[in-house]
């Protein structure tokens, strides 16, 4: 029972991390970076290869951080910058970017799942349930970045500028905020965080090119349930959906977890389209 709670929270933390990554670019640029989960996986593969070559773990993580950010910036330059606004073209181009990354990873590292080990670990007993130490770190990291980013958005100049931009692009531009740089910075920052957390995520999921797609969709569902733009909403929805999945898996069987999530997701959307913590803007003609 408690073990199920822990495993649900651990999976939920991963979903929350993906949703938080989406939120970073969504808040600043209004664009959902569907390829974010693929960048997380890329970070995992870089770590895997670096460690395989016997490099220092600190160096490898820095590399994952830098390359993750770099790939996201390239994506922003190529697949996002020149889009016409308001046609949902970003859905197609970022799905395209995700597909490119998936294909590239499958070519370089094969399609087979590979274990990622940052450190040796044994399941440990916590409040009467078993949990892997890396899961504790994952949950902690998800909580920490959700809180930090919420504070960052509310207290810092950059955070406020990005909130302003999400609300009204033209007005923000006229206030002298360089929205182009903001777009690059937010993609880069999200990508770097994703790359860095990749190996940690992959300790749970293993590194595999196709895991990214499942994570991407789940992350999006978490994002929507939590309310777009709300980092705390993403955290709570992520952990909640992780728990729902874990318990339906245990009670009803493996095949039902995703179905249950889907049903709850659609029901929530129909009742509260703006998500749990989102605000709805209304404007008509």
């Amino acid at each position, binding site marked *: 029972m408690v073990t199920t709670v822990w495993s649900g929270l651990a999976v939920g933390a991963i979903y929350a991390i993906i949703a938080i990554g989406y939120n970073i670019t969504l808040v600043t640029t209004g664009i959902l970076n569907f390829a974010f989960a693929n960048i997380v996986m890329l970070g995992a593969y870089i770590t895997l290869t670096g460690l395989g070559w016997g490099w220092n773990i600190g160096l490898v993580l820095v590399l994952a951080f830098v390359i993750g950010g770099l790939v996201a910036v390239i994506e922003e330059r190529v697949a996002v910058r020149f889009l016409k606004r308001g046609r949902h073209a970003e859905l197609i181009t970022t799905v*395209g970017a995700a597909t490119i990354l998936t294909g590239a990873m499958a070519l370089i590292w094969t399609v087979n799942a590979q274990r990622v080990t940052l450190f040796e670990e044994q399941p440990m007993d916590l409040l009467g349930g078993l949990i892997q130490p890396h899961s504790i770190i994952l949950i902690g990291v998800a909580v920490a970045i959700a809180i930090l980013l919420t504070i960052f958005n509310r207290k810092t100049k950059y955070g406020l500028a990005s909130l302003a931009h999400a609300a009204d692009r033209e007005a923000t531009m006229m206030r002298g905020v360089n929205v182009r740089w903001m777009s690059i910075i937010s993609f880069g920052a999200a990508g770097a965080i994703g790359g860095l957390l990749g190996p940690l995520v992959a300790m749970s999921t293993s590194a595999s090119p196709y895991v990214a797609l499942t994570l991407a969709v789940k992350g999006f569902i978490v994002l929507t349930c939590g309310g777009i733009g709300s980092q705390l909403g993403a955290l709570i929805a992520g952990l909640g959906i992780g728990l729902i999945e874990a318990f339906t898996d245990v009670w009803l069987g493996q095949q*039902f977890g995703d179905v249950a999530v889907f049903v709850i997701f659609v029901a929530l959307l129909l009742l509260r389209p703006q998500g749990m913590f989102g605000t709805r803007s209304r404007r*008509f003609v």
Partner: protein
Amino acid sequence: MSIATAGRRRSRWGWMLPVAWIVVTILVAAAPFLGLSSQLMRHVFLALTIVLMVSGLNLTFGWSGELNLGIPAMYAAGAYAAGYMSMHWVNDLLLGILFGALAALVIGLITGIPGLRLGGWMLAIVSFFVVLLIPNIIQIVPADILGGSTGLIGIPKPKLFGITLSTDAYFAVAVVITALWLAIYRNTVISRIGESLVTLQQGQALAPSLGMSRYRLKLFAYAMGAVPAGIAGALYANLDRFLGLESFTINLAVLVLAASIIAGGRSIYAVLFGAALVQFINFESTQYGEFGELVFGILLVLGGVALGGGISGLIKSLASARARRRAPVDSADSAASEASAARFDAAIEPLAGEPLVVEGVSKRFGGMQALEDVTFRAEPGRITALIGPNGSGKTTTLNIVCGFYPVTTGVVRLGDKTVSSKPPAWVARAGVARTFQTPLIADGLSTVETVASGSIASHHVSLIETVLRLPRYRRVRSQELVKAYGILQRLGIERFADEPADSLPLGTRRMTELARAVAASPKVILLDEVASGLDTHEVAGLARMLKAVAAAGATVVLVEHNFALVRSLADHIVVLADGQVLTQGSPAEVERHPEVLGRFLGEMSDLSGTSITTREDGASSPA
């Protein structure tokens, strides 16, 4: 060039299309008997299933702007339904296809439900998720029904009217079925139905203001888009006579999306090229590892960045460039028709106007009192103007009249019918037409088609009549176009009739919107700042048109900043300030009202509304 000559030109070449269609279908269907290798035949067959799926995606995404990526789920539903049917009930290809299409339709509507309330990426991701759920759901169903994770084995050879089909014959049947569907698809989108669907992409206001229910249009698009996916599934089930879970993955969704992007979201014939290319890349990639995904990804990025219209858009823009080079002929033509404009001047049909009564209407948005106890009456045959400073509630009043907002208290009546708090599409069909502050014009329609779209809701023509181009469809269609062309002539903008309406200059787009509203033969016509952004010449044309519309019997309600224009046009002026009626009466009365003079006429009388709104427009959208 008049509609009549355009019609003649079309009919002169009209016979070519069906003939070409029949010839190509026969050639492809007969290919195996002419020596097509079985390997190539398989590729063509798979490409055909992609063609079907892409046409389904085009209906939802390209035409309606609804990115429903659940195509593999509908495909799977069609495949499993047809497979199950031929194993356990009756083995007949046509019944199997019918049943498969039906199953796909059900799944398409289920995946579409979230899209009815949420737009954009919500629908995209929900439908993506449905695709991820396919294996789960098939494994939840007991394995002796759908085969579970091992797959559905033992589908018998397909029979048609009791005759077992050979591989070659089955191929030929599949070609014919795909060709038939393509003809249905083509006739559906190139029609009033296609023109209704594209209005969905202009936000929530346009379709209902034309009397069309967004809800029903979306349902139609989801249903119609699911059918070909189901047919494709049924065809696929009988190809290998085995269904495995690995055939229905998210990769298939990406592949179909890529094909649609390459071909163009609203493509018809280019779908064939898109599907063939994608099938080729997909096959090569399974031979050489995973590079197919790389290529699809690159195609999606390039196609999405260029999101114009894919191959089909490219061909169309080449064709229109060619047409422009021939422009001198056309302009001579239009000069001639301009000369004949006078003849049309009298030809505005009588409109059965009814009084619009706004009685004690109040509107609250949360804590903000937008309107308070607004009462006025707009008579048929007269022009009533609503004026007032920004934020005084003019547009809110219009939005309440046409049903976009429910009233908090009060009532709006059209004749003796209550229209307040009714759905906007209902209000529009009751006879209220309108224009918008920022013109809402669906992209991809010509000006004359845009104007004709104003009257789509007033004549119902069934899908079957449309697809088969039955006489009733042709009659309604030509009446609509002739009427639309006549209105354009009256406004003096018929030379733009065949141009894409959304690329016209702002003033002409406003006139087009006005024409579209008139085309609906409304009882009441609501105009939201219709003169802003027009030059003096256009304002004069507009004024003539409005007077003619009123003289024809309609009730004209005008929201306008330009006091000079209002004074010269309006029979009755209602002055709004802070959500209340400050005063109302004839222009002369209102002009003398001390508060009107003091509050805003005095400070604004030197600034015409036109110049103010032009500046606003310039800042927000460089048109």
